[in-house]
């Protein structure tokens, strides 16, 4: 079958399934991943889907105005924002997730394409610097005490299951 037809059918099928699927914003990433992977499998490239389909995909996942208004009414007492702000934020978050996931699957420039020479294993100097900056955010754990306890435990490793089971005495005893 023609690639464009496959892309279109994948979208139609996804949109149909979505009607009865999990529409929660929390699940939006998974929903988008499902469709974009189908497109990838159909060998779609960025230009096949970006302008012609991405806006439709976002619209499909965004709540209907009546649904959004109804949700706002239910949550109104707990919210510190107007109906307009609430609906706009909801729609924006769906659009942001769709766009983010889309670019993961169809990067304008391939995600892992790095034209710089590989200096550190399979990484360029730029990628390596980014990895270092990223890893430096995490504190280093001092494992000395943990290792000491782990080694002690290996030495005195008692099986406590039976001991715990016997805490209450005979199994057949009752409360009475």
């Amino acid at each position, binding site marked *: 079958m023609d690639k464009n037809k496959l892309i279109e059918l994948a979208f139609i099928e996804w949109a149909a399934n979505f009607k009865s699927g999990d529409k929660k914003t929390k699940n939006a990433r*998974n929903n988008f991943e499902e469709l974009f992977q189908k497109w990838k499998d159909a060998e779609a490239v960025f230009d096949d889907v970006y302008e012609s389909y991405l806006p439709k995909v976002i619209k499909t996942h965004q709540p209907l105005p009546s649904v959004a208004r109804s949700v706002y009414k239910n949550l109104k007492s707990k919210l510190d924002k107007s109906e307009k702000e609430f609906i706009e934020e909801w729609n924006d978050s769906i659009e942001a997730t769709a766009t983010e996931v889309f670019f993961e699957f169809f990067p304008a420039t391939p995600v892992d394409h790095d034209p710089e020479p590989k200096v550190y294993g399979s990484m360029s100097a730029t*990628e390596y610097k980014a990895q270092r900056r990223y890893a430096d955010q*995490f504190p*280093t754990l001092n494992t*000395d005490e943990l290792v000491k306890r782990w080694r002690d435990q290996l030495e005195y490793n008692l*099986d406590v299951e039976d001991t*715990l089971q016997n805490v209450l005495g005979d199994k057949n005893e009752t409360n009475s």
Partner: protein
Amino acid sequence: MKLTPEQMQAQLKLAGKGPTADVQISLDDIESFGDQASMREMLTDIGKYKKMLSQRITLINDALSATIPFTRENLYLFCAYTGSGKSTVAANITYPLWLQGKKTLVISNEESKQDILFRIACLHLGLSFNDYKKGMMPNEDMMKVVGLFPEISNYVKVLDVTYQDGITTKIEGIKKALEAVKKEDSYSCVLIDYFQLIKYSIKDSKKTAYENLNDLRVWLGQYIKGSSMPVVLFAQLYSVSKKGGAKDIDTRIKDCSAIVEPATVIIEIVPNYDNQTSEFIIHKDRFGKQGNKIVCAFEKGRYVMISEDEIQNRTKNSRLNAATAALDRLQGSNGAT
């Protein structure tokens, strides 16, 4: 055709619309909390949890073993950017277990079975696997390595991509292999290298890669609950620079990020070429060390424990070397002008 009442019930049950079983909770049931039977149940569960922890096995080295209990009923997701050490970590997990006479199954969709055994033998002999790959290993050393293959393969069983025409890239193949070792009960660990390559289905060739990966992660979530051994799954990550340095691991796991849900532990491997260490960042951990990293020295292919002082020294030296190199470059360019 008319259905009998029994057939109708059966159809409704299949559709999940059958009558629901009566649910009754009495006040007596609630009040019984704290009696001897419920105490016994709780203590039994505490005992089981303690037993699960006591059955932990070595995870690479003492620092990692002590921090992250490596034990049954857990799925360990090791993630890395391409070329950042997934296969090296797999060999480092397998090596100490082999030394202890513990059986391991390695399902590899990337490295060949001989390379997997070669890596483990190199770790044991202190030889460089990269030398072998570059054709720089002397024949004498190669013979020593190959000589260890029979001994290693007694305990390290490998299914690679050549096995049964690539069955390890198919979800059914992975399920069958995992079920087989579960039944056998003599395996201490299973490693799968790597997740994103298990994208096909034998039964349904129309299923997309995403659907297969998603099915696998749901199945793994169920599998580990009754598993008598830990399962280690490796996964590929997108590059950090293209993701703006996002701290959240979910957005960087390729193809099916939902694998984070069944994983009980998620560790990212980040090599540090400046000071010859590797960092194991703990992104998810049911044992309480999430958000930290463990630094290990990388020596002759092995991740070994290193003291904090040694890390500081190495870091200082690497900075000093970088500054000296920069100064030399500057002086060189001044001299040239």
